[in-house]
């Protein structure tokens, strides 16, 4: 294993060029841009130093918090009504979406993987089927879901109405009016229900993390399960003491990757926005796109917002990574602790 390093450089050359030109340099440029603005954004010249004013503009408040005027609760954290209401709303939306979608998605994908790992009949067909939405994803499935969620003509609400009709006699035993006033949500036409709708869409497409979980489950030594069974351990105890320790590294990996991914959701927001949502689905990525690429093309301000977003991501992810020391079990670390 003593190969000349010039060879290695050649193998890495495409990546080095890409990393330098398309990641490292843009990161620096973006940081610099966040302190500047173009005097004339269309011709992109006459760059002007503005210091921290973009950052200040992003976090400034216009007036104190007053719940009587129906201010959303998170304005309290900011100290009042923000100058840039949409920025904070979009950040709030992205975080709320991720906080619900990521744990739910991981729980469902882990449960699915555990089921598929039981070697039941027909699991290979089920695995393919459950993975499919992950590859199909994107604009086309978003369009299909938006029609499925249509409050009047979509199957989801029709399914709910059927369910209510079916359950009506039973519910009547407990309340006089039966299911007559049970809600059929307006989904994408409601400021409240638009987020659950997108969370459901997210859970539909958890095939990727499911497959990574499944691959990790395949690698848990069978002998450990046999030993646990001989000791008379229940299925739950087997999961807790055999399966879970082995898959914790993958849980951490999936958690971080899907958090980073959902926080950057863009296409859902772009396709599914309606006026009736009152910006309930305005995700950060969409707002940033609008700031940067719609007139008046505020590249500098957009860069500052992107860096605040990086800060938010760090605040979300670093505690998760640090907590990993408490609950992630690394193969081999046991040996070092003993010796």
């Amino acid at each position, binding site marked *: *294993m003593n*190969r000349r*390093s010039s060879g*290695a450089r050649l*193998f*890495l050359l*495409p*990546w080095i060029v*890409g*990393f330098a030109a398309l990641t490292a*340099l*843009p*990161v620096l*440029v973006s940081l610099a841009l966040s302190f500047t603005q173009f005097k004339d954004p269309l011709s*992109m010249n006459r760059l002007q130093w503005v210091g921290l004013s973009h950052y200040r503009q992003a976090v400034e408040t216009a007036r104190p918090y007053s719940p009587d005027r129906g201010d959303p609760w998170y304005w309290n954290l900011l100290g009042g009504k923000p100058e840039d209401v949409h920025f904070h709303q979009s950040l709030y939306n992205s975080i709320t979406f991720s906080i619900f979608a990521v744990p739910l998605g991981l729980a469902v994908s882990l*449960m699915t993987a555990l*089921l598929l790992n*039981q070697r*039941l009949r027909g699991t290979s067909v089920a*695995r393919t089927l459950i*993975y*499919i939405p992950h590859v*199909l*994803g*994107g*604009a*086309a499935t978003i*369009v*299909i879901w938006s*029609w499925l969620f249509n409050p*009047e*003509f*979509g199957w989801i609400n029709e399914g709910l*109405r059927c369910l209510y009709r079916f359950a009506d006699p039973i519910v009547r035993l407990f309340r006089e009016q039966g299911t007559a006033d049970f809600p059929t949500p307006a989904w994408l036409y409601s400021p409240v229900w638009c987020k659950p709708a997108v969370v459901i869409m997210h859970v*539909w497409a958890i095939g990727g993390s499911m497959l990574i*979980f499944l*691959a*990790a489950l*395949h*690698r848990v030594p069978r002998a450990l399960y046999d030993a646990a069974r001989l000791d008379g351990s229940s299925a739950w105890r087997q999961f807790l003491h055999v399966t879970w320790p082995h898959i914790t590294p*993958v849980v951490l990996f999936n958690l971080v*990757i899907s958090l980073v991914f959902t926080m*950057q959701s*863009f*296409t859902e927001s*772009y*396709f599914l926005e309606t006026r009736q949502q009152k910006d309930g689905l305005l995700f950060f*990525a969409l707002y*940033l*796109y609008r700031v*940067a*690429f719609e007139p008046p093309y505020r*590249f500098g301000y957009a860069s500052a917002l*992107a*860096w605040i*977003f*990086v800060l938010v991501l760090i605040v979300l*992810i670093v505690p998760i990574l640090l907590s990993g020391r408490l609950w992630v079990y*690394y*193969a081999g670390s046991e040996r070092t602790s003993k010796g």
Partner: protein
Amino acid sequence: MRGVPYIILVSLCAFILVPLIWAVVSSLKPLEEVYAFPPKFSMHDPQWSNYREAWTRLPVGRFMINSLFIAGVSMVGAVWSASMAGYALARLRFRGRRLCFWLIVGSMLVPAQVLLVPRFLLFDLLGWVNTYKPLIVPAWLGGGAFNIFLFRQFFLSIPSELGDAAELDGASAWQTYRHIYIPAARPAVVTAALLSFVYHWQDFLDPLIYLSDFMTYPISLGLRMYQSMAGTWANLLMATSLIALLPVAIVFLLCDRYIMRGLGVIGETTGTRRR
């Protein structure tokens, strides 16, 4: 009790299938039935002509060819550059190897929003706006951190004796890579190819930023056009969505048996810190 896992599994599969069945049913309905209240679950007279109409109302064929071109060329580049980088990280010794590895892992966590504006300015400077270059060239320069990581993990899982033997016989690093490791890494190649094809097929933000001529649109942007002008023809919109899904579904079904082994290596060694 033994039936419970089956019940859960079957309901999961139903959950996956319902939207797709719904799209097929809606795409075959005549317009007045799509907007029938309450909606009907069945249909008696499938309107296959909806597909012809969907295909011609906007240049859907053109959009599909554009998408195939973008996704195909990017896919080849991503597999080429990511496999080389992954090979160097897994099997070659050189100074800065660990640094490169951590830079790659770290770049997975850099949000696209930070890179958006500077990349646009760079591509604008190069005169690449309104061409496919901003969509394709990045794939040839690294092929995505996830793919590099995938190849590295896979090459590490191949016994090194194979490469060492070739090396002893006087094979160069390139020959060992090309004739020993790449053929042995077929699951990783197929998985990376599929994932990058799918990624570029679905990509919406980059085409939105860089393309303005409508004949160059990929199908993702085409669907958006359809959606914004076709609020009234839901059946045609569903037909177009299904047309857009078809190539990805075919590619996926062709690769399915490799993906499990390809992605398997992610679960395999993410936990081990050093080998």
